[in-house]
């Protein structure tokens, strides 16, 4: 079992999903809970990797040092080989863990399924839910582009149905919108997938002397889908980065970068391709919103780091200023939109756009600090935003509406819940000592630090820093309107958060504090190693390209 640990974790939810189709209706949710719970427990076993050693050093001395690797041929021909290739490094490990954790809580949050407005098809719901979990976990561990793509699509369909069937009034519209946006991205990714395969074949044919595989040490002779190979193989990198390498008469690296980028940018999401998000969030049932905000958005950021910047660092250089503009606009525009909302859930959704803007900003300046900040911000947001969505869900269950202006004084009628809400929203606000702060601070410092390299970075950092004022504005304003003020008659009798609800909120709240107080021990130690190596790798490629240009 130990050597197939990852596969077990990835497919366990799906197995549980299949099992629950054959159990009595009352047991369905318990099977689902067991499935996602076991996946979470098993994923905790991954920590064994880090015992007895400095965590940062675990990931070896070159990018692509992995743990828990499993690779086997899947679809092989004589010119190509698609592998079942999974493994963990510092990029995927924190996100992988986050996924099992948030999924477990979301599963728990689905336990009041019977009291939902649409409470038919509990089996289908939990089956799709668990399938979705498998898809998400698969995306984070796949290191073969083809496999990655498959999981990416596997994730898409359950989400479509979960929103479209169990959502709010405009669920179909929202589901289709979500589907289309994501699909548009997938199309471009598919183009990239194919192009990268053929170009890598060209590369190894062109520079056979450089085409030594990181894995076997032998010479690579065919095109590859191996993401690590694509990143680290010198022949491939040299060919990809060469100014003479063109697709449709366009330089290859910037073009491919943008193909992949758009797909991930839609997921992240950035302005202007963010509009699926508020709709999807508002219509989706609470647990699905938690998953969506907590995990799905992170795939965008993960994709940037793993694919866009890993394989095409020169594309990152090329588009940096453009991406920074998008990032800053996302931060400020998202915050302003959040401020304008009257629907509580939509507000939280727009706040995600704003927070994810920091992720993009941290990444696009291509500094170590920026990368670390972006990763941390993803994890932190993966904790705080499910919490906020669940907090909204709790009062929606009671009030059956989400109009901010109709609430008031909820802290008085639900003191325990009110305290948790304050904690969650202040974490989202980026208060020091809570998780939201560290990522933002890192991103800002990382961006400012890029000043000598990118002239605009100072300005970008300052504009982004202004986001903290806007964020404080909309968060405090909503807290005031919903939780403060005198208690309204109709909400006086609201029951305090139940045990189940506290069971979901308490771990999230505890993590908000833990990540804020001990960011190094809780997050950075597990990813810094790989991020540093990634940066080294990227710098190597950039220098190679500069040398080539100079020569």
């Amino acid at each position, binding site marked *: 079992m130990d050597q197939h640990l990852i596969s077990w974790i990835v497919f366990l939810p799906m197995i549980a999903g299949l099992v629950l189709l054959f159990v009595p209706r009352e047991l369905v949710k318990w099977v689902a809970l067991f499935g996602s719970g076991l996946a979470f427990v098993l994923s905790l076993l991954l920590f064994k990797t880090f015992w007895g050693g400095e965590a940062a050093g675990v990931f070896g001395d070159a990018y692509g040092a992995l743990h828990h690797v499993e690779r086997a041929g899947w679809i092989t021909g004589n010119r190509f080989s698609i592998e079942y290739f999974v493994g963990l490094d510092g990029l995927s490990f924190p996100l992988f863990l986050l996924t099992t954790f948030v999924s477990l809580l979301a599963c728990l949050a689905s336990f009041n399924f019977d009291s939902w407005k649409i409470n038919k098809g509990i089996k289908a719901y939990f089956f799709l839910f668990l399938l979705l979990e498998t898809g998400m976990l698969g995306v984070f561990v796949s290191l073969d582009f083809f496999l990655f793509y498959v999981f990416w699509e596997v994730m898409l369909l359950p989400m479509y149905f979960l929103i479209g069937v169990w959502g709010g009034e405009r669920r179909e519209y929202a589901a289709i919108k979500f*589907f289309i946006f994501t699909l548009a991205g997938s*199309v471009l990714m598919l183009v990239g997938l194919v192009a990268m395969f053929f170009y890598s074949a060209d590369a190894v044919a062109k520079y056979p002397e450089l085409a030594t595989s990181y894995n076997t040490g032998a010479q690579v002779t065919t095109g590859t889908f191996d993401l690590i190979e694509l990143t680290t193989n010198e022949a491939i990198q040299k060919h990809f980065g060469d100014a003479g390498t063109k697709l*449709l008469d*366009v330089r290859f690296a910037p073009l491919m970068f943008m193909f992949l980028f758009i797909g991930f940018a839609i997921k992240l999401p950035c302005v202007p391709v963010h509009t699926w998000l508020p709709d999807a969030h508002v219509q989706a049932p609470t647990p699905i919103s938690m998953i969506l905000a907590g995990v799905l958005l992170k795939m965008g950021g993960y994709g940037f780091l793993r694919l866009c910047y890993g394989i095409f660092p020169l594309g990152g250089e090329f588009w940096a200023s453009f991406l920074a503009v998008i990032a800053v606009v996302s931060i400020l525009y998202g915050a*302003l939109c959040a401020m304008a909302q009257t629907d509580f859930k939509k507000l939280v959704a727009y706040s995600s756009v704003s927070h994810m803007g920091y992720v993009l900003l941290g990444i696009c300046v291509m500094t170590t600090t920026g990368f670390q900040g972006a990763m941390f911000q993803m994890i932190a947001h993966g904790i705080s935003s499910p919490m906020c969505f669940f907090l909204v869900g709790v009062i929606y269950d009671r009030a059956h509406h989400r109009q901010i202006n109709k609430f008031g004084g909820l802290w008085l009628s639900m003191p325990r819940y009110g305290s948790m809400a304050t904690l969650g929203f202040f974490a989202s606000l980026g208060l020091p000592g809570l998780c939201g702060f560290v990522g933002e601070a890192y991103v800002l410092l990382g961006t400012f*630090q890029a000043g000598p390299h990118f002239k605009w970075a100072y300005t970008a950092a300052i504009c982004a820093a202004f986001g*903290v004022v806007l964020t404080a504005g909309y968060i405090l304003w909503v807290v005031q309107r919903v939780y403060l*003020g005198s*208690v309204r008659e109709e909400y006086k009798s609201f029951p305090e958060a139940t045990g189940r609800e506290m069971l979901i909120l308490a771990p999230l709240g505890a993590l908000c504090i833990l990540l804020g107080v001990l960011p190094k021990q809780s997050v950075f130690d597990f990813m*810094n190693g790989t991020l540093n190596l990634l940066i080294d790798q990227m710098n190597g490629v950039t220098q190679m390209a500069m040398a080539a240009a100079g020569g």
Partner: protein
Amino acid sequence: MGNYEIALCIGVVAPLFMFAVLAFFGHRIGKPTSGWVAVLGVLASLGCATYVLLGWLSATDKAALMATTGYDWVVLNLFGNEMPIEFKVKLDGLTVMMYFMVALVSTCIFVFSIGYMAGHSDEVDGQCKFHRFFCYLSLFEFSMLGLLISSSIFFLFVFWELVGLCSYLLIGFYFDKKFASNAAMKAFITNRVGDFGFLLGLMLVFVFLQTFDLDQAAANFRHQYATNSGIFAADIDILGWHVSGMGLATLMGIGLFCGAMGKSAQFPLHVWLPDAMAGPTPVSALIHAATMVAAGVYLVARVFRLLTPDAQFFIAVIGCITLTITALIAIVQVDIKKVLAYSTLSQLGYMIFGMGVGAWPAALFHLITHAFFKAMMFLGSGQVIEGCHHVQDMRKMGGLHKKMPVTCWTFFIGVLAIAGFGIPGTHFGLGGFFSKDEVLAVAYERTYNWEDRFGGHEKDDGHGAENAHSATPREDDLILRSGKVILASGQVHDEHGSEEHDADEHGADEHGAETSHGESATHGAAAHDAGHGGHHDDPVLAGIAAQQHKIPKWMFWLPIIIAYVTPFYMMRCWWMTFMGKPRDGHVHHHAHESPLMWAPLIVLAIGTVAASYMMFRPQLGEAAVIASDAPLVVAVDGEVPDKAQHELLGLSHDKDKDPHGALIGIVGFSWLVGMGLAILIYRNGLELAERIKRLPFVGFIHWCLMEKLFFDHIYDTVLVGGTRVILSGASNLFDILVVDGIANLLGRGTVRIAEFSGNIMDTGGVDGLVDAIAESTQGAGEMVRQPQTGKIRNYILFGTTGAVLVLAAIIAVVMS
């Protein structure tokens, strides 16, 4: 870790522990026990503080006490180098003094609160919020003490935000009241505006000084100044604005000061503090008078070594404006807490002004004396409000001295202290008599004696003159400064590598030093500069001083005038409350005192007297020696310990120019004049004041002051109106001018924009486009009578079309 470090840490953690206890079990502990639990925590802090203070005072080798153990919170990466953000206890005179002051004042206020909140918690919501109050107070205590022991600017910022959070929670303690939650929000957001500047400062410190440690940053700053490298050689574009060298260093200083502007409520961010009085009175005393608002001054004191002359001048101007306008507004307030709030603002203005003119120890001295007497007066007002059943309007009070003798006379001591009561020329006086006098003396020195002493000349234009001034003898300056630091304390020199470097550098021969600093023209120009201004025997000092601004006269005279105004409005407040005849029988009848509440007043009164004379002043002088070792700072102060006397520039001892002597004539009896005038006007009740108010011109001024000089209106108009004008044309300007309501700094204006972008643009624009395309494809589909008209199909069609369009766009961009 040394004992003192441990003690300081325990003192910080104890309230945090009590916070956790109260947060989880507070509702079971109940009332009033939960209050005593919190007191227990803060008593532990006080114990630790006393232990450290006594140890510090008795230590002969203070450098040996300095903290040595650090904890790397995170490790940042800066240009490929590792740069840890370290948590380390800052252990020096300033921390010890402040820590003790905060712990002592807090203890008094915590005890007072038990009495006060007994009548103020339950009635609010029918539930026991009593424990929650002490829960927040404990959290505040933790954050505030944490702020004081942070040795890194980064952690200063962390705790900075945390005290802001506590302030938010406590101002909004009666959050069921709309005005309270508005005030809380206003406070937090206004502070965030300041923190935005703070963040900018932090980023500049990070990138250019490459450390967050305060001492190390100062050392690097000095080194960079000496070698004309780092921030002094940098050259960047921010928001299309080109800044470089000294200008950038100034920007860094001003950025850091922006944080202080928020927390210490300096103009133009002062608007939140009066509103913050919506919180319970003990909170006003603790957070909004004695400790948190003073944190801004503390911050400036801590980063003093990173301030350029321009930044200092900026700080002085801000302080001067704040102390003036807020004192004027205080004159007309009728709410007892509002008077105290505005007087706090004004006194904070004095402190910031003092910092700006270089009176480092004087400003902090004033901070400490002020903390005692202002906390005392706030608690007194709390006692009055409690006794009078929540009446805060002074017009309904009067004659309370018989009912509340202790409150009355402790309050009177506070009035004397803030008024600067004392016999000029002797050492008999209270609080402000010493501390404010020192600030003003330095201001006098900078205004009138500057040229004579140093041949310094007023800079007409900071940036224009910059080039000329950068030609001061930097190496020589360093010799002087390093020498001073070594002599004064020894520890700074020993601790930091780069200072060693400095020292080595001046040891190197002149030629080598010159070649290593590309700009070798420096020396010639420097000689010229010194010679030019030089009817002075020390060209080095002249060089430094030449960079310091001579202060314009109005910046000396405004604080002087306000020194007359302060006694007036404080005496007015006291007289209206306690003296004269009772104006409201009902209120007067109910008035009473309770021992739990007046005992702390007496402790604070003793503290006020003690602070004026003993403990703090010499210690601060000693701390100043370390704090003012910046390359561009001339510490102007005479009253430093002998040991440091000859290294710092003292005040003039020339008899003709002695500022203290001059001040006796100018301001020595201001307390008598101000207080006398107040008694004259208010001795027979309010009639005379009403008559004066009806005078035509006075009436207008009174109206302006009652409207708080329109700041809230202006913010409202500019932020709300400005955007509204943009949106709906200038048609309803009148409406905007009369718009009242919260002056939320973000304002409804931003919300307007947000609504526009959020609703109209997003749903109308982007989504509209998407939908339109989808519909048109659907239309196209129907036209060709495709059998399957499922929506998904069309969306996929759209998706692919979109993808192709994007593709085309990318190709276009990349190819260009």
